[in-house]
């Protein structure tokens, strides 16, 4: 699969302070990439570099087939960006806002009008199309800003905190829309603090704090950091089965809490039957056996916490 974004040692310094330090990553076309990190980690600076808004101090990147720093005007025309702030003209109507940007994105008047109307319908803003944007709710403004980023049908879209400060219903609409964009084959570079959202939407995730701490699919990140785990619920006190579990060579880090045993297991798909046999052999009556699922939040906090 082709790479939509490829960076090598991308670095940005501000007056000697390193904001982004040697970022190297590849993002496959047609996937959703989640870029996670705490405030001030350099996420927005990275997005601005990749969207050719600011130049890197060092390193290089290819975005949507354009080499950064070679023809940045063409690069900007090939990507869409939802900036941190919606940045809309409050006095202008939704339609006037979008028409302005459609023309700046080189759409001819007829196509500009068609695209504006299309996205106003898609994002459920058609009924308010001629009203000043200053009267819009936060959710409507965010949807309009997303529409603005897509008018020219870019192959790569940067979304900086698309659901921040939205109510659950509006956030759901935006998430569904992002899924739709992915289904259309677009590459989404998603910056978010909403970890369940990243888990739900992203094919791969980069955890970033000035430099890339870890990158992989959500499941790879969990497995890489916490290993695979199994939870066994038994009848009665689980503590008495701890020695039995610990005696098994493929079981590690066994904890008991009430009727629940939690442990790391090498290759659970293969070893869980042996584990169950050993516990039953020791007299355990088993209610449930479940896969231990670490949340993306656990992964994030372990990585970012270790570098805070």
């Amino acid at each position: 699969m082709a790479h939509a974004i490829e960076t090598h040692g991308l670095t940005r310094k501000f007056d000697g302070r390193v904001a982004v330090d040697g970022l190297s990553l590849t993002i496959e076309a047609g996937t959703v990439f989640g870029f996670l990190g705490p405030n001030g980690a350099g996420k927005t600076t990275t997005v601005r570099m990749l969207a050719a808004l600011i130049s890197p101090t060092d390193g290089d990147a290819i975005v949507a087939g354009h080499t950064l720093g070679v023809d940045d005007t063409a690069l900007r025309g090939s990507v869409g960006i939802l900036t941190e702030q919606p940045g809309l003209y409050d006095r202008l109507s939704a339609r006037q806002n979008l028409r302005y940007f459609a023309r700046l994105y080189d759409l001819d008047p007829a196509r500009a009008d068609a695209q504006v109307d299309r996205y106003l319908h898609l994002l459920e803003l058609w009924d308010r199309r001629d009203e000043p944007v200053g009267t819009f709710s936060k959710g409507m403004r965010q949807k309009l800003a997303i529409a603005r980023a897509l008018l020219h049908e870019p192959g790569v879209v940067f979304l900086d905190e698309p659901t921040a400060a939205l109510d659950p219903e509006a956030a759901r609409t935006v998430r569904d829309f992002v899924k739709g964009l992915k289904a259309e084959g677009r590459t989404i570079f998603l910056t978010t603090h909403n970890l369940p959202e990243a888990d739900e939407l992203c094919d791969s995730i980069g955890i970033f704090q000035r430099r890339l701490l870890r990158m992989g699919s959500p499941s790879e990140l969990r497995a890489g950091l916490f290993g695979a785990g199994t939870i066994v619920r038994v009848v009665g006190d689980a503590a008495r089965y701890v020695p039995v579990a610990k005696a098994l060579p493929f079981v590690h880090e066994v904890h008991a809490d009430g009727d629940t045993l939690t442990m790391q297991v090498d290759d659970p798909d293969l070893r869980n039957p042996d584990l169950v046999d050993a516990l039953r052999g020791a007299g355990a009556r088993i209610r449930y056996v479940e896969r231990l699922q670490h949340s993306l939040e656990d992964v994030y906090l372990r990585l970012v916490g270790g570098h805070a």
Partner: protein
Amino acid sequence: MKKALIVLDKEWLELRLQRGLLLATLFLPPVMTAFAVVVFYAAGKFSANVNTAGAPLPPEFAGLPPLELAQALVGRQFSVLFLLLPIFIPSVLASYAIVGEKRERTLEPVLATPIRTWELLLGKMLASLIPALAITLGAAALFVIGIFAFAITDRVRELIVTPGWVLAVIVDTPLLALIGVALIVVLSSRVNDPRTAQQFSAVLVVPVLALLFGQLAGVIVLGPALALGIGVILAMAAAGALWVATRLFQREVILTRWR
């Protein structure tokens, strides 16, 4: 260039939606001009007892009868209005067009489009300069018509509508307007309130007022040579101001340095 016109179009659309700003900037000059012409007319009718004993006067006003002197003084004072308007009008328009956009955080999405920074700057500047110059020159033309219609003698007319003043209006006012807009761009990198930018840019009226008082006191005679000389100085100042403005109005600088 096409994108500069798109920006210009959007700026004027926004301007049309700001009724207060539109009224204050575009309709006030004709009203002031009409007022100037009315006062000029009245001075020629009702100033028979004007007393200028001891007051410094331009040498060319010496020996004028009272009514002519009154008209010439009124006309000369109001004529400077047309050197002040091109400072005020574009400063007000540009401060809303640039500082306003900075405050509303609308610049970043624009900078993210394939527009070149000079196209954006040109669009913003033209959006302020074109109406300012049109309204100033239009108002100046009305003023000249008023002077020609109501001057009680040819001498009064010649003392007000001088070749120096005409040259100053045609040559110097666009340059003053350009400096005003460039100054707003420079100030935009530091201030977040359009009114603050306007207050700072108002410093440009000082040399114009100096010209007015110098003329009235007889110290300065605004002849064609002086008007052109001022034009040369203003052109250099405008070039310097534009150079600074274009350096500050760069994508990178706007996004990382403007606070």
